[in-house]
């Protein structure tokens, strides 16, 4: 299972549009991309999850790791495009308290 990731640079944000499923198989790829952007100085990352069919706790861990990494460099990581089931999952895990959905 491949993860589709397309990038756009907007103002001082990197927008990542993700397509596919984020789990133990694909999560490392997203993690590497986030690490790469932060290393390159792009510390504000916006992740569009509208085309994500599935995300599990490994995927949530990648987002939490990205949040910690970007904030550690005075940046931020936010998500948009959450489906109802993803919103529910963010709520169940408390992720909604720290990974707020950016207004579009």
């Amino acid at each position, binding site marked *: 299972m491949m993860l589709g990731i397309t990038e756009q640079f907007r103002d001082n944000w990197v927008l990542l549009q993700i397509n596919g499923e984020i789990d133990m198989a694909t999560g490392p790829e997203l993690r590497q991309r986030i690490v790469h952007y932060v290393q390159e100085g792009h510390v504000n990352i916006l992740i569009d999850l509208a085309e994500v069919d*599935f995300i599990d*706790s490994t995927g949530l861990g990648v987002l939490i790791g990205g949040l910690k990494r970007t904030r550690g460099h005075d940046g931020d990581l936010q998500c948009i495009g959450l489906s109802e089931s993803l919103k529910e999952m963010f709520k169940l895990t*408390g992720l909604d308290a720290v990974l707020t959905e950016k207004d579009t």
Partner: protein
Amino acid sequence: MTTGITLEIPAKAEYLSLVRAVVVSAAALDPAVKDQRLEDLRLAVSEATTNAIRSHANLGSEERITIRCGLTADRIEVEVQDRGPGFNPEDITPIGPLDQPGRLNYEGGFGIPLMRVLADEIKINSADEGTTVQLVVYTPPSTESS
């Protein structure tokens, strides 16, 4: 279990997607199961299988993980059985809120709490020779005549 399937997979993350698809397809054979419950099952099975794959990290590649899915009149039962070193479920401490200072240092700790929320019943039997996680999702009475 009245009807069911059994899958044996190598302990590789690449098989997670297949496990989710097969289990949800089997559960969907019962027309009374609502989509939201199928989503709950999909996530819970993925979490259990992910933990099983992780537990095989130090085992040979010939050791398989077994997933059984059975449907009865009032429930879907899924068992995920691994051969990894066991653990004591009592030792799992609940994760704190993510906005708690320092919590962001830990990216994990969601799997078992999520399974407990998503499944109607969960049993974890763990021993030195492996762990079996049993997940149960209740199904409403079917309105179809047979």
